[in-house]
């Protein structure tokens, strides 16, 4: 049976079986093609999202179903000083790293947009931080930041920038700076390569024309390149903001939220409360607290993309 269908359906004459005639209808075919995606996304995104909301209004713990408690969990985290620190940290982390990732990424993209020997290899190497599993590369950073064996301290000392040892991950402010540096390191390649793609769609003739008209390099960048690059930049920035805002791996490896809970983000604090101490409903409430902000960013992104498409 299987063999005959294969043989006759090769653009052949006999009428296709009923099963295939159903798929001639676009709506049926579309439905059939979308079912696997809908099932997976429904089971593992939509359903857990609803479960998360239900969980956050109970007092469930691991192994204990718990009762409805209304907004008690949200009230509790609102008055929790560690949660407030985590909120502050998350905004600081996202804002500072995004500014640096954009500035450095754009600079690197401009450098790579030139012709030079070894361009292809340089580009390939530059993507490495973005490709290598984040947890594994973050361990390399943790080792570089180790208070006793830090190679960074050695370098800074021999460059004459410091006189004594710096305990990077032991001091709350320095620990925050450290995780910010690691995040910038990881994100710059993504910005650079995406913006480079944007730069390459801009015709060089525009720049040449501006140069003939007497525009200086900075003016050419500001009045010619930047406006044309803006759509790509917006998409990259908004995407990166979402990823950074919900980041977990870098902080989990570098500091685990410490020292003394000074570097927690939403995700690491939710993990510590929800999984570490087993207060499932409170942990769910903490990670759900990210949602309104993420939702806002997604809306901005959708509106922006739509506007660009209409144009």
């Amino acid at each position, binding site marked *: 049976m299987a063999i005959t269908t294969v043989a006759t*359906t090769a653009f052949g004459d006999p009428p296709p079986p009923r099963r*295939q005639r159903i798929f001639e209808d*676009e709506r049926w*075919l579309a439905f059939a*093609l*979308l079912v696997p*995606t809908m099932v*997976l*996304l429904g089971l*593992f995104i939509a359903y*857990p*999202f609803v*479960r*998360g909301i239900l969980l956050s209004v109970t007092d469930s713990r691991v192994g204990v179903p718990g009762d409805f408690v209304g907004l008690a969990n949200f009230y509790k985290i609102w008055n929790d000083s560690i949660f407030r620190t985590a909120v502050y940290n998350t905004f600081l982390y996202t804002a500072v790293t995004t500014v640096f990732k954009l500035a450095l990424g754009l600079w690197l993209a401009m*450098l790579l947009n*030139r012709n*030079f020997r070894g361009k292809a290899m*340089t*580009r*390939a*190497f*530059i*993507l490495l*931080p973005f*490709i*290598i*599993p*984040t*947890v*594994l*590369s973050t*361990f*390399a950073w943790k*080792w570089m930041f180790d208070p006793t*064996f830090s190679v960074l*301290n*050695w370098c800074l*000392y021999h460059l004459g920038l410091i006189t004594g040892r710096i305990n990077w991950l032991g001091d709350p402010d320095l620990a925050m700076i450290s995780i910010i540096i690691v995040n910038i*390191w990881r994100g*710059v390649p993504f910005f650079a*390569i995406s913006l480079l*793609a*944007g730069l390459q769609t801009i015709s060089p003739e525009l720049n040449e024309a501006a140069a003939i008209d007497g525009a200086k390099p900075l003016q050419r960048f500001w009045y010619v390149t930047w406006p044309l690059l803006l759509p790509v930049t917006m998409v*990259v920035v908004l995407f990166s903001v*979402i990823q950074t*805002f*919900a*980041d*977990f*791996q870098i902080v989990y*490896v570098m500091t685990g939220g410490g020292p003394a809970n000074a570097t927690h983000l939403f995700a690491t604090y*939710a*993990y510590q409360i929800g999984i570490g101490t087993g207060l*499932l409903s409170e942990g769910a409430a903490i*990670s759900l607290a990210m*949602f309104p902000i*993420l939702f806002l*960013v*997604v809306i901005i992104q*959708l509106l922006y993309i739509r506007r660009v498409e209409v144009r």
Partner: protein
Amino acid sequence: MIEGALWRKWVFFYFPLTLFLIFLLFPFYWMIITSFRPDGELYRPWNSINYNPFWTWKPTLEHVHYLLEETLFGAWLWNTTFIALASTLISITCGVFAGYALSRLNFPFAGSLGTGIFITYLVPQTLLFIPLAEIIRNYKLGDTPWSLILTYPTFLIPFCTWLMMGYFKAVPKELEECARIDGASRWQAMIHIIIPVAIPGILSAGIFAFTLSWNEFIYALVFLSSPAQKTVPVGVTSELIRGDVFFWGPLMAGALLGSIPVAVAYSFFVEHYVSGLTGSVKG
């Protein structure tokens, strides 16, 4: 190139580019050198005399040996490969089908479905891991590779779909219509005409999905508990750190060996990869 004197080229181009390269690549160098350094050299305070951080004359394989013989690294590597391949396969299949439906078929709600899939791409794993852990436990999937094979597609499918939509849109309608006139069914036209044209897109989506699943951490950390079931990132994290003691040599060796498969996969497909990334960014 930069116009003008040679020194300008150095100041505005070579010097900053070199700084970028050092900043971006030094951690890998450090990972590699640590993997091959004997413990006696590794655990020397940075301010001790004769500290020579950047090179060793006594390279050793003891850390690699320790990693391969004293830990379950081989099992983690196999788990990660299997999980990454299986979830990539699922995601590509779903992504190709959904991308075809959304870009080439007319049906009600096509627009809002597309938007819905796009939005799920922007739902981070850290938003859902606590309720998902409960669901995984209820389905009796906890501590099995299936807990990850089934959940990874949630962040891979949207990307694959999005990428494939772009590729399918670029295929001219006439190609398909010719096949249809020759008697092909819609399904046959899709399989024999449209999908082959989109193979570069399928490849880049595949590489992207593979590296993303290799990279994933929080679901693997929460859903897997027994050492033999773990993936490389989780295994290395949980088994090479005992309390406050970090086994830095084997840890860096594990990081290095765990990075090589993705680095190789990606080096073969770097051009596809970049076009995939940028294709998605152009939206």
